[in-house]
Protein backbone atom coordinates (compact mmCIF):
# COMPACT_ATOMS: atom_id res chain seq x y z
CA UNK A 1 0.00 0.00 0.00
CA UNK A 2 2.73 2.43 1.09
CA UNK A 3 4.83 1.49 -1.95
CA UNK A 4 1.88 2.16 -4.29
CA UNK A 5 1.30 5.54 -2.65
CA UNK A 6 4.99 6.33 -3.01
CA UNK A 7 4.87 5.54 -6.73
CA UNK A 8 1.95 7.94 -7.04
CA UNK A 9 4.03 10.88 -5.81
CA UNK A 10 7.72 9.96 -6.16
CA UNK A 11 9.68 9.19 -9.36
CA UNK A 12 11.10 5.65 -9.34
CA UNK A 13 12.24 3.08 -11.92
CA UNK A 14 8.95 1.22 -11.28
CA UNK A 15 6.94 4.22 -12.54
CA UNK A 16 9.36 4.99 -15.36
CA UNK A 17 11.00 7.77 -13.30
CA UNK A 18 7.85 9.90 -13.31
CA UNK A 19 5.38 10.20 -10.42
CA UNK A 20 2.19 8.40 -11.53
CA UNK A 21 0.10 11.44 -10.61
CA UNK A 22 1.93 13.50 -13.25
CA UNK A 23 1.40 11.01 -16.05
CA UNK A 24 -1.18 12.08 -18.67
CA UNK A 25 -3.67 9.35 -17.77
CA UNK A 26 -3.70 10.40 -14.10
CA UNK A 27 -4.07 14.06 -15.06
CA UNK A 28 -7.00 13.11 -17.32
CA UNK A 29 -8.51 11.23 -14.35
CA UNK A 30 -8.19 14.39 -12.24
CA UNK A 31 -10.15 16.27 -14.93
CA UNK A 32 -12.78 13.53 -14.61
CA UNK A 33 -12.86 13.93 -10.81
CA UNK A 34 -13.35 17.70 -11.17
CA UNK A 35 -16.13 17.25 -13.73
CA UNK A 36 -17.79 14.67 -11.48
CA UNK A 37 -17.74 17.17 -8.61
CA UNK A 38 -19.38 19.78 -10.85
CA UNK A 39 -22.04 17.30 -12.00
CA UNK A 40 -22.74 16.48 -8.37
CA UNK A 41 -23.14 20.19 -7.56
CA UNK A 42 -25.56 20.69 -10.43
CA UNK A 43 -27.55 17.58 -9.57
CA UNK A 44 -27.70 18.68 -5.93
CA UNK A 45 -28.91 22.17 -6.96
CA UNK A 46 -31.63 20.55 -9.06
CA UNK A 47 -32.74 18.07 -6.38
CA UNK A 48 -32.39 20.43 -3.39
CA UNK A 49 -32.82 23.96 -4.79
CA UNK A 50 -32.19 26.78 -2.33
CA UNK A 51 -29.44 25.04 -0.33
CA UNK A 52 -26.58 26.25 -2.51
CA UNK A 53 -26.44 29.99 -2.90
CA UNK A 54 -25.00 33.41 -2.18
CA UNK A 55 -25.98 35.64 0.73
CA UNK A 56 -26.27 39.37 0.19
CA UNK A 57 -26.68 42.60 2.16
CA UNK A 58 -27.42 44.78 -0.89
CA UNK A 59 -30.33 47.22 -0.59
CA UNK A 60 -32.03 49.48 -3.14
CA UNK A 61 -31.19 52.56 -1.06
CA UNK A 62 -27.47 51.69 -0.99
CA UNK A 63 -27.35 51.03 -4.75
CA UNK A 64 -29.21 54.31 -5.40
CA UNK A 65 -26.94 56.36 -3.11
CA UNK A 66 -23.72 54.87 -4.45
CA UNK A 67 -24.82 55.28 -8.07
CA UNK A 68 -25.44 58.96 -7.46
CA UNK A 69 -22.14 59.21 -5.58
CA UNK A 70 -20.36 57.97 -8.70
CA UNK A 71 -22.17 60.61 -10.77
CA UNK A 72 -21.28 63.30 -8.24
CA UNK A 73 -17.63 62.26 -8.57
CA UNK A 74 -17.92 62.97 -12.29
CA UNK A 75 -19.68 66.31 -11.70
CA UNK A 76 -22.97 65.01 -13.11
CA UNK A 77 -26.49 65.80 -11.80
CA UNK A 78 -28.13 63.25 -9.50
CA UNK A 79 -30.53 60.68 -10.95
CA UNK A 80 -34.08 60.86 -9.57
CA UNK A 81 -35.77 57.67 -8.40
CA UNK A 82 -38.71 56.72 -10.61
CA UNK A 83 -41.19 54.13 -9.28
CA UNK A 84 -42.28 53.09 -12.81
CA UNK A 85 -38.66 52.34 -13.70
CA UNK A 86 -38.32 50.45 -10.40
CA UNK A 87 -41.35 48.34 -11.38
CA UNK A 88 -39.85 47.55 -14.80
CA UNK A 89 -36.53 46.60 -13.13
CA UNK A 90 -38.36 44.34 -10.68
CA UNK A 91 -40.35 42.75 -13.52
CA UNK A 92 -37.07 42.03 -15.32
CA UNK A 93 -35.54 40.38 -12.22
CA UNK A 94 -38.69 38.32 -11.63
CA UNK A 95 -38.70 37.24 -15.28
CA UNK A 96 -35.09 35.99 -14.99
CA UNK A 97 -35.99 33.93 -11.92
CA UNK A 98 -39.20 32.63 -13.48
CA UNK A 99 -37.58 31.51 -16.73
CA UNK A 100 -34.16 30.63 -15.28
CA UNK A 101 -31.95 32.85 -17.44
CA UNK A 102 -29.25 35.47 -16.95
CA UNK A 103 -29.14 37.88 -19.89
CA UNK A 104 -30.44 41.17 -21.24
CA UNK A 105 -32.71 39.32 -23.66
CA UNK A 106 -34.98 36.57 -22.38
CA UNK A 107 -35.27 33.12 -24.03
CA UNK A 108 -38.84 34.15 -24.92
CA UNK A 109 -37.40 36.98 -27.01
CA UNK A 110 -38.16 39.84 -24.59
CA UNK A 111 -35.65 42.71 -24.73
CA UNK A 112 -35.05 45.15 -21.83
CA UNK A 113 -37.14 47.71 -23.73
CA UNK A 114 -40.19 45.43 -23.51
CA UNK A 115 -40.04 45.69 -19.70
CA UNK A 116 -39.86 49.50 -19.86
CA UNK A 117 -42.91 49.55 -22.14
CA UNK A 118 -44.89 46.99 -20.09
CA UNK A 119 -44.36 49.10 -16.96
CA UNK A 120 -45.66 52.14 -18.88
CA UNK A 121 -42.43 54.10 -19.10
CA UNK A 122 -42.14 56.16 -22.29
CA UNK A 123 -38.54 57.15 -22.86
CA UNK A 124 -36.25 59.16 -25.08
CA UNK A 125 -33.30 56.99 -24.12
CA UNK A 126 -32.92 54.05 -21.74
CA UNK A 127 -30.38 51.53 -20.44
CA UNK A 128 -30.05 48.43 -18.24
CA UNK A 129 -27.36 47.11 -15.86
CA UNK A 130 -27.56 43.61 -14.35
CA UNK A 131 -25.67 41.94 -11.50
CA UNK A 132 -25.89 38.68 -9.58
CA UNK A 133 -24.24 36.80 -6.67
CA UNK A 134 -22.68 39.90 -5.06
CA UNK A 135 -22.50 40.13 -1.27
CA UNK A 136 -22.24 43.89 -0.77
CA UNK A 137 -23.02 47.12 -2.60
CA UNK A 138 -19.44 48.47 -2.59
CA UNK A 139 -18.15 45.46 -4.54
CA UNK A 140 -21.14 45.56 -6.87
CA UNK A 141 -20.65 49.23 -7.74
CA UNK A 142 -16.91 48.86 -8.22
CA UNK A 143 -17.59 45.91 -10.58
CA UNK A 144 -19.96 48.03 -12.67
CA UNK A 145 -17.59 50.99 -12.64
CA UNK A 146 -14.71 48.80 -13.86
CA UNK A 147 -16.73 47.68 -16.87
CA UNK A 148 -16.76 50.37 -19.62
CA UNK A 149 -20.30 49.57 -20.81
CA UNK A 150 -21.87 49.49 -17.33
CA UNK A 151 -19.91 52.56 -16.27
CA UNK A 152 -21.22 54.35 -19.37
CA UNK A 153 -24.79 53.82 -18.11
CA UNK A 154 -24.03 54.96 -14.54
CA UNK A 155 -22.22 58.16 -15.49
CA UNK A 156 -24.17 58.96 -18.64
CA UNK A 157 -25.35 62.60 -18.82
CA UNK A 158 -28.21 61.37 -21.06
CA UNK A 159 -30.14 59.80 -18.17
CA UNK A 160 -32.26 61.72 -15.66
CA UNK A 161 -34.06 58.92 -13.82
CA UNK A 162 -33.34 55.49 -12.40
CA UNK A 163 -35.30 52.51 -11.09
CA UNK A 164 -33.60 49.76 -9.09
CA UNK A 165 -34.69 46.25 -8.12
CA UNK A 166 -32.94 43.97 -5.63
CA UNK A 167 -34.69 40.61 -5.76
CA UNK A 168 -33.82 37.40 -3.92
CA UNK A 169 -34.75 34.10 -5.51
CA UNK A 170 -33.53 30.79 -6.87
CA UNK A 171 -31.84 30.71 -10.27
CA UNK A 172 -31.00 27.27 -11.68
CA UNK A 173 -31.37 25.81 -8.19
CA UNK A 174 -28.95 28.31 -6.62
CA UNK A 175 -30.30 30.93 -4.21
CA UNK A 176 -29.04 34.37 -5.17
CA UNK A 177 -29.76 38.09 -5.34
CA UNK A 178 -30.33 39.77 -8.69
CA UNK A 179 -29.81 43.52 -8.98
CA UNK A 180 -31.32 45.37 -11.92
CA UNK A 181 -30.80 49.05 -12.73
CA UNK A 182 -33.09 50.67 -15.31
CA UNK A 183 -32.01 54.10 -16.52
CA UNK A 184 -34.11 56.48 -18.57
CA UNK A 185 -35.08 59.95 -19.65
CA UNK A 186 -38.86 60.43 -19.91
CA UNK A 187 -40.40 61.26 -23.26
CA UNK A 188 -42.73 63.87 -21.73
CA UNK A 189 -39.82 65.62 -20.00
CA UNK A 190 -41.50 65.34 -16.57
CA UNK A 191 -38.83 63.98 -14.21
CA UNK A 192 -40.28 62.30 -11.09
CA UNK A 193 -38.66 62.04 -7.71
CA UNK A 194 -40.34 59.14 -5.90
CA UNK A 195 -39.22 58.06 -2.40
CA UNK A 196 -36.78 55.14 -2.49
CA UNK A 197 -37.99 53.95 0.92
CA UNK A 198 -41.20 52.62 -0.66
CA UNK A 199 -39.13 50.02 -2.48
CA UNK A 200 -37.45 47.27 -0.54
CA UNK A 201 -35.59 44.13 -1.61
CA UNK A 202 -38.18 41.54 -2.55
CA UNK A 203 -38.33 37.76 -2.52
CA UNK A 204 -39.27 36.01 -5.71
CA UNK A 205 -41.00 32.65 -5.48
CA UNK A 206 -39.00 30.16 -7.46
CA UNK A 207 -40.53 28.57 -10.54
CA UNK A 208 -39.23 25.24 -9.20
CA UNK A 209 -41.58 23.46 -6.80
CA UNK A 210 -40.44 22.33 -3.35
CA UNK A 211 -37.70 24.89 -2.79
CA UNK A 212 -36.44 24.76 0.81
CA UNK A 213 -34.45 27.96 1.24
CA UNK A 214 -31.86 28.03 3.99
CA UNK A 215 -31.20 31.23 5.95
CA UNK A 216 -28.78 33.43 3.99
CA UNK A 217 -25.98 32.85 6.50
CA UNK A 218 -26.22 29.05 6.05
CA UNK A 219 -26.05 29.05 2.25
CA UNK A 220 -23.25 27.03 0.68
CA UNK A 221 -21.55 28.99 -2.10
CA UNK A 222 -21.07 26.88 -5.27
CA UNK A 223 -18.36 29.32 -6.41
CA UNK A 224 -16.41 28.66 -3.23
CA UNK A 225 -16.74 24.88 -3.61
CA UNK A 226 -15.49 24.99 -7.23
CA UNK A 227 -12.67 27.32 -6.21
CA UNK A 228 -11.53 25.19 -3.25
CA UNK A 229 -11.63 21.91 -5.21
CA UNK A 230 -9.64 23.56 -8.03
CA UNK A 231 -7.08 25.00 -5.60
CA UNK A 232 -6.60 21.65 -3.83
CA UNK A 233 -6.14 19.89 -7.19
CA UNK A 234 -3.60 22.40 -8.46
CA UNK A 235 -1.88 22.53 -5.05
CA UNK A 236 -1.33 18.75 -5.06
CA UNK A 237 -0.04 18.73 -8.66
CA UNK A 238 2.33 21.66 -8.00
CA UNK A 239 3.67 19.95 -4.87
CA UNK A 240 4.27 16.65 -6.70
CA UNK A 241 5.93 18.52 -9.59
CA UNK A 242 8.35 20.17 -7.16
CA UNK A 243 9.26 16.84 -5.52
CA UNK A 244 9.49 15.07 -8.89
CA UNK A 245 11.62 17.84 -10.40
CA UNK A 246 13.92 18.05 -7.38
CA UNK A 247 14.54 14.28 -7.27
CA UNK A 248 15.09 14.08 -11.04
CA UNK A 249 17.57 16.95 -10.78
CA UNK A 250 19.56 15.57 -7.84
CA UNK A 251 19.52 12.01 -9.25
CA UNK A 252 20.42 13.38 -12.72
CA UNK A 253 17.66 11.25 -14.27
CA UNK A 254 17.40 11.39 -18.07
CA UNK A 255 13.77 11.05 -19.20
CA UNK A 256 11.32 12.11 -21.91
CA UNK A 257 8.79 14.30 -20.12
CA UNK A 258 7.45 17.83 -20.29
CA UNK A 259 9.28 20.66 -18.56
CA UNK A 260 8.58 20.58 -14.82
CA UNK A 261 9.67 24.23 -14.57
CA UNK A 262 7.17 25.22 -17.26
CA UNK A 263 4.39 23.14 -15.68
CA UNK A 264 5.04 24.63 -12.23
CA UNK A 265 5.01 28.16 -13.66
CA UNK A 266 1.81 27.53 -15.61
CA UNK A 267 -0.02 25.91 -12.70
CA UNK A 268 1.11 28.58 -10.21
CA UNK A 269 -0.31 31.24 -12.54
CA UNK A 270 -3.65 29.42 -12.79
CA UNK A 271 -3.55 28.86 -8.99
CA UNK A 272 -3.11 32.62 -8.42
CA UNK A 273 -5.92 33.43 -10.85
CA UNK A 274 -8.19 30.99 -9.02
CA UNK A 275 -7.38 32.53 -5.63
CA UNK A 276 -8.35 35.97 -6.93
CA UNK A 277 -11.45 34.86 -8.84
CA UNK A 278 -14.36 36.91 -7.52
CA UNK A 279 -17.85 35.94 -6.52
CA UNK A 280 -20.44 37.93 -8.44
CA UNK A 281 -20.91 38.72 -12.09
CA UNK A 282 -22.33 41.56 -14.14
CA UNK A 283 -24.05 41.66 -17.49
Amino acid at each position, binding site marked *: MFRKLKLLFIPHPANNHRAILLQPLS*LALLIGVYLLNQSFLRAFAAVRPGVLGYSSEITIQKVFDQTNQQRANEGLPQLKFNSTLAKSAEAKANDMFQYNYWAHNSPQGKSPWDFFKSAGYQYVTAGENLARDFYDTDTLL*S*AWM*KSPTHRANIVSPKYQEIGIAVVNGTLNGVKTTLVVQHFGTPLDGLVRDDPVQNFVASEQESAVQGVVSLPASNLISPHQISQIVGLVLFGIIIGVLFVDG*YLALTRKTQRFTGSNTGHIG*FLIIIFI*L*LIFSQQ*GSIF
Partner: protein
Amino acid sequence: MKHLIPKQIIEHPFEYLSLALFFGGAVFAFFFFTYDAHSQRRVVYFTSAGYLLWSLYHHYRRGDLHLSIFIEYLVLAALAIVVALFTLV
Protein backbone atom coordinates in the same frame (compact mmCIF):
# COMPACT_ATOMS: atom_id res chain seq x y z
CA MET B 1 22.91 26.63 -5.37
CA LYS B 2 23.50 26.49 -9.12
CA HIS B 3 22.98 22.74 -9.16
CA LEU B 4 19.36 23.37 -8.08
CA ILE B 5 18.61 25.36 -11.24
CA PRO B 6 17.21 22.96 -13.85
CA LYS B 7 19.63 22.39 -16.73
CA GLN B 8 16.95 23.29 -19.25
CA ILE B 9 16.71 26.85 -17.86
CA ILE B 10 20.48 27.33 -18.10
CA GLU B 11 20.45 25.98 -21.67
CA HIS B 12 17.37 27.91 -22.89
CA PRO B 13 17.19 31.06 -20.75
CA PHE B 14 15.36 33.19 -23.34
CA GLU B 15 12.63 30.60 -23.85
CA TYR B 16 11.92 30.55 -20.14
CA LEU B 17 12.17 34.33 -19.91
CA SER B 18 9.59 34.71 -22.71
CA LEU B 19 7.34 32.21 -20.90
CA ALA B 20 7.66 34.17 -17.65
CA LEU B 21 6.79 37.41 -19.47
CA PHE B 22 3.79 35.73 -21.11
CA PHE B 23 2.54 34.52 -17.72
CA GLY B 24 3.08 38.00 -16.27
CA GLY B 25 0.93 39.41 -19.08
CA ALA B 26 -1.77 36.84 -18.31
CA VAL B 27 -1.87 37.89 -14.63
CA PHE B 28 -2.09 41.56 -15.65
CA ALA B 29 -4.94 40.82 -18.10
CA PHE B 30 -6.79 38.77 -15.45
CA PHE B 31 -6.74 41.64 -12.96
CA PHE B 32 -7.60 44.14 -15.66
CA PHE B 33 -10.85 42.20 -16.22
CA THR B 34 -11.79 41.87 -12.52
CA TYR B 35 -15.53 41.02 -12.16
CA ASP B 36 -15.77 40.32 -15.89
CA ALA B 37 -15.86 36.53 -15.64
CA HIS B 38 -16.32 36.09 -19.42
CA SER B 39 -13.11 37.95 -20.21
CA GLN B 40 -11.26 36.29 -17.31
CA ARG B 41 -12.20 32.88 -18.69
CA ARG B 42 -10.83 33.97 -22.06
CA VAL B 43 -7.56 34.97 -20.36
CA VAL B 44 -7.24 31.41 -18.98
CA TYR B 45 -8.06 29.89 -22.42
CA PHE B 46 -5.51 32.16 -24.07
CA THR B 47 -2.84 31.38 -21.44
CA SER B 48 -3.43 27.63 -21.82
CA ALA B 49 -3.26 27.85 -25.63
CA GLY B 50 -0.12 30.00 -25.40
CA TYR B 51 1.54 27.51 -23.05
CA LEU B 52 0.71 24.68 -25.45
CA LEU B 53 2.28 26.60 -28.35
CA TRP B 54 5.34 27.42 -26.23
CA SER B 55 5.74 23.71 -25.41
CA LEU B 56 5.73 22.81 -29.12
CA TYR B 57 8.46 25.36 -29.86
CA HIS B 58 10.47 24.50 -26.74
CA HIS B 59 10.52 20.73 -27.31
CA TYR B 60 11.08 21.13 -31.05
CA ARG B 61 14.20 23.17 -30.26
CA ARG B 62 15.27 20.61 -27.66
CA GLY B 63 14.74 17.85 -30.20
CA ASP B 64 12.41 15.78 -28.02
CA LEU B 65 9.01 16.71 -29.40
CA HIS B 66 7.09 13.45 -28.95
CA LEU B 67 3.39 12.76 -28.92
CA SER B 68 3.49 11.63 -25.27
CA ILE B 69 5.04 14.96 -24.24
CA PHE B 70 2.52 16.93 -26.27
CA ILE B 71 -0.33 14.99 -24.64
CA GLU B 72 1.09 15.84 -21.19
CA TYR B 73 0.88 19.56 -22.00
CA LEU B 74 -2.51 19.14 -23.63
CA VAL B 75 -4.00 17.46 -20.55
CA LEU B 76 -2.56 20.11 -18.20
CA ALA B 77 -3.98 22.89 -20.39
CA ALA B 78 -7.34 21.08 -20.47
CA LEU B 79 -7.34 20.83 -16.66
CA ALA B 80 -6.78 24.59 -16.35
CA ILE B 81 -9.56 25.30 -18.86
CA VAL B 82 -12.05 22.96 -17.18
CA VAL B 83 -11.43 24.47 -13.72
CA ALA B 84 -11.69 28.03 -15.12
CA LEU B 85 -14.89 27.14 -16.94
CA PHE B 86 -16.66 26.24 -13.70
CA THR B 87 -15.00 28.70 -11.30
CA LEU B 88 -15.11 31.88 -13.38
CA VAL B 89 -18.87 32.10 -13.92
